[in-house]
Every structure is written in structure tokens, then in C-alpha cells.
């Protein structure tokens, strides 16, 4: 009995260490950004919000944050619409066409982002969109499309076909059924997919790095540039801002859909 207790405690401690390992870098970044001291150190000395003031006062960080928000919001809107249409399309396809279509849509998730970015770098240059905002935006949409598509199709799979039939037998056509019955039913999937799109786009690195416009940094790129020369809590504040966005997304999913249904 005693041996079993010790074994249980050891297993618990081991698991505790593993979970701590998962969360440690995030906790350290947040705490370091609240430091009252002058250097980036952990544990931080004192408490202040001055590094956040410095972050928002830093012009290149401010511009980068603005560009990131712009790209991420545009991706979210475009991807939510395109992925919803694609999910409805897949539902209407016969079984032997739906499979290949789904595989094609999920490909950007299965291929390494850096390779997709390299292909787009070559291709966009040839069609005259090299290093343009539009090119960057297209790259973000291609990478995030599968995330939204996955969550919308899984919502769509749970819709009872009887509801569609009921709508049809009451005289509604395909368009009306889709708008009045299907869309409200899959709204949670669209919201979750949209929020994931936002955060994946907001954090995207490799794609932005290869396709960025001249002088147009997104927040991850600005942080990367900053870390090359400086190592102070302003960088921690920049990183904390993006952690806060992730937390906001999780909170929104929980509030609007419920985390349990989202995963």
C-alpha cells in the first residue's frame, strides 16, 4: 500500500513538472514584462507597467501592432466567409468528390508553412504581387483557411438532416434553408473558426517573414527584429500583448460558444 502511495506521488510530481514545463515560458514572459527594474530579469524586481507604456510609445511596435491587427481582422472576415461557403459546398458534394476536396482544403495545414511561403514568394513575384500588402494578406488567408474549415465542417456534421428536410417540406428553397436554418445552426463553428483564424494570423511568422512589404513589419516580425539588438522588458511587453490577445480569444470562445464545444 505504501509503495503504491509513493508511486502515485512520484507520478503526480512528474506530471506536475511536465505541465509546468508547458506553461513556464509563457508565465516568465508575462512576469518579466511587469518588472520594475531596468533589465530583463527573472524573477522580476518590483512591479510597474512602464514597459507597456514604452511598448505603445515605440513607433515601430505601434505600426507593427496596427498592421498585424489589420491583416488578422481581414483574414478573419475573408476566411470566415470562404470557409463557410466551402463547408456548405462539401456537404453538397457526393462522397467520392467530398474526400479529395477536403484533402485539398486541409493541405496548407499539412505542408510546412515555410515551404508554402517560399512557393508564394516565387509565384507572387511573377504575377507582380511580390512584397505587396495584398500578397501578404493572401498568404495569411491560405494558411488560416483550413483552421476555419475544420471547425465549420465539424459543426455542419452535427446538424440533423431532418431539420433541412423539415425546412424544405415547409416550402423553403435551398438558399432560404441555408440562410435561415443552416447558418444559425453552424454559427458556433463559424465563430470558433473565425477566432482561431484571427489568432493564427496574428501570430504568423514564417509567411510574414518571407512575404513582408518593405518596412512593413507585423508584430512578430517587429519583436524578432527588436530581439536582435535589444534584450529588455519592452520585448517582454510586446510578447505579453500577443499573449493577451490569445487569452482574449480563449475567453471569447468560452463566452460565445463554450470551450468544451469548441474542441
Amino acid at each position, binding site marked *: 500500500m505504501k509503495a503504491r502511495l509513493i508511486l502515485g506521488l512520484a507520478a503526480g510530481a512528474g506530471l506536475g513538472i511536465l505541465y509546468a514545463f508547458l506553461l513556464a515560458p*509563457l508565465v516568465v*514572459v508575462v512576469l518579466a514584462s511587469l518588472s520594475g527594474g531596468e533589465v530583463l530579469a527573472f524573477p522580476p524586481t518590483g512591479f510597474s507597467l512602464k514597459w507597456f507604456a514604452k511598448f505603445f510609445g515605440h513607433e515601430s511596435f505601434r505600426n507593427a501592432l496596427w498592421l498585424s491587427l489589420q491583416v488578422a481582422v481581414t483574414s478573419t472576415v475573408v476566411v470566415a466567409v470562404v470557409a463557410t461557403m466551402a463547408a456548405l*459546398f462539401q456537404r453538397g458534394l457526393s462522397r467520392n468528390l467530398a474526400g479529395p476536396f477536403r484533402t485539398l482544403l486541409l*493541405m496548407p495545414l499539412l505542408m510546412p508553412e515555410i515551404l508554402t511561403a517560399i512557393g508564394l514568394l516565387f509565384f507572387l513575384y511573377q504575377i507582380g504581387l511580390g512584397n505587396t500588402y495584398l500578397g501578404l494578406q493572401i498568404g495569411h488567408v491560405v494558411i488560416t483557411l483550413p483552421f476555419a474549415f475544420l471547425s465549420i465542417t465539424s459543426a455542419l456534421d452535427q446538424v440533423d438532416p431532418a431539420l433541412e428536410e423539415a425546412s424544405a417540406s415547409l416550402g423553403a428553397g435551398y438558399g432560404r434553408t441555408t440562410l435561415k436554418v443552416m447558418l444559425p445552426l453552424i454559427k458556433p463553428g463559424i465563430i470558433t473558426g473565425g477566432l482561431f483564424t484571427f*489568432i493564427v494570423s496574428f501570430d504568423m511568422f514564417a509567411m510574414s517573414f518571407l512575404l513582408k512589404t518593405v518596412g512593413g513589419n507585423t508584430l512578430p516580425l517587429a519583436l524578432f527584429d527588436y530581439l536582435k539588438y535589444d534584450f529588455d522588458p519592452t520585448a517582454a511587453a510586446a510578447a505579453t500583448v500577443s499573449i493577451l490577445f490569445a487569452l482574449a480569444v480563449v475567453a471569447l470562445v468560452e463566452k460565445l460558444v463554450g470551450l468544451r464545444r469548441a474542441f
Partner: protein
Amino acid sequence: MTARPWRLAILGAPALFLLVVFFVLPYGEIVMMSFRTPSSSAPYGDGVTLANYARMFADGHYLGILAETVAVGASITAICLLISFPIALHLSNVGDRWHTLFYACVVSPLLVGVLVRNFGWMIILSFNGPINQILLALGLIDRPVRLLFTVEVVVLALVHVFIPFMVLPITTALRNIPPSLYEASRSLGAGRFATFWRVTLPLSFPGVQSGVILVFVLAISAYVTPVLLGGQFVVLMPTVIVQQLIAAFAWPFGAVLAMILTLSTLTCVLVFAFATRGLARRAAIGRTP
């Protein structure tokens, strides 16, 4: 209820257009680019040549980097598997009340960019960071040591980044094992260890297989972590490719390196899938009721 074909086509058109034009064609462009002639005035020239491939194979330097990249990717995958299995085991057994919390612990790092997570390690491992302080306090070292910019740190940080990708498929596989098999194993006299070894482990293999493939592919193509935490001391394939493309503007040669990396990754994945096909088949048989 089905839509009229043209209506359905309108629904599918935007996604198909986006993926064919901005995903399929660009990959074709990598292949094309690898056969183009280099140029000193533009990213690439007009001619067609095999010289880029010849240059790559003639120069042992790039093959060496490729071998190192594959080795680093394999060790990241192995360590990731060792760490992720216990987490997945816990996650698949934990009661409903706590499930969301632990699940969030595993998934939440995914929602934070790779760069931010790497930066956390930079703070922890920096010259006056907590690890150096602890080592100093314990008297194991007498002045701070350089921990960053080593291949070990790159491996550590990438293992951290990829754990969720390993945990999630294994958890799914473990949850799919019918509880009746555990009961059968116990009633036939097997202890906890024997049950784990002969039931849990073999039946979790489909999850392990997809986790291993996923993490290996991601690890081989990771760019930002080796650059940030390895600096000039850790040179892996993605770094070299990006250097060729961005700094040297040698697009055809960069494309050749990207092709070689892709083909080697594909070969490794196929060899792994082929070598473990017996295990996968066994798990499939065990699953049929």
C-alpha cells in the same frame, strides 16, 4: 436537400480558386524555380538547367547540413514522444471536471506564437536568468555559463513547441480504446504493468504514428527557433534556404535546397510508415470489436 449544380459551384468557387492559384501553383513554382538558371541582376535567369542540382550534390557542405537537420528533427521527435505519452495518458484518464483545465494547459501554448514561446526560453536561459542563478546558488558553477545558442537549447524549445501536436493525436487514440479490453485484461490476471505493455501501448500506436509524422515534418522545417535560440552556432536547412532566398537572392539554388529538404522529409516519413506498418495493423485488429 441538394442545391442546383450551379449554385453549389458558386459556393465552392472561392476556396477552389484560392487554393489552386495561391497554393498548388506556388508549389509547382518551387519545382520550376529549381531548374532555372541563376542570374546576377535578378532573382533568377531565363534558361533551364540541371546545374543547381549538380552544385548541391557536389558540395558536401549542404548534404552535411541536411543530415544534421534530419538528425535534430529525429531527436526532437523522440524526446517529444517520451514527454507527450504520459501527458496523453493523464489527459485521457482525467475526470470530466478537470478535463477542460488540463486540456487548456496543453492547447493554450498553441495559441501563442512560436516567437513568444521561444522568447520565454531566452529569458529563462539567459546569462542572468533563473537557470544560471539556480546553478550558481547550488554551487555547481562559479560564474554564469552561456546556455543559449546551442543545439540542445534549440531541441528543448522545439520539443516544447511541438508537444501539443504529439499529445492530441495520442490522447484521441487512447480515448478510443474500449474500456472492456482493460477489464478483459484484468480478469485474465494481467497486472497494471502487463495491461499497459500489452493493451494500452500497442493500441495507442495509430496516435503515436500520426503524432510522430506530424512533429517530424514540423521539426525539420522549423525556421524561427533555430535562428533565435541557435544564432550562428546552429545552422539547419531552413535557415540556409531562407539565407539563399532573402540575403543572396539566389532563388534557383534556394529552390533546389527546398526540394531536397521536402524529398528527404517525404522519404523519412514513408520509411517510418513502412517500417511500422505491422504495429499499425496490429492496432487496427485490436480495435475491431
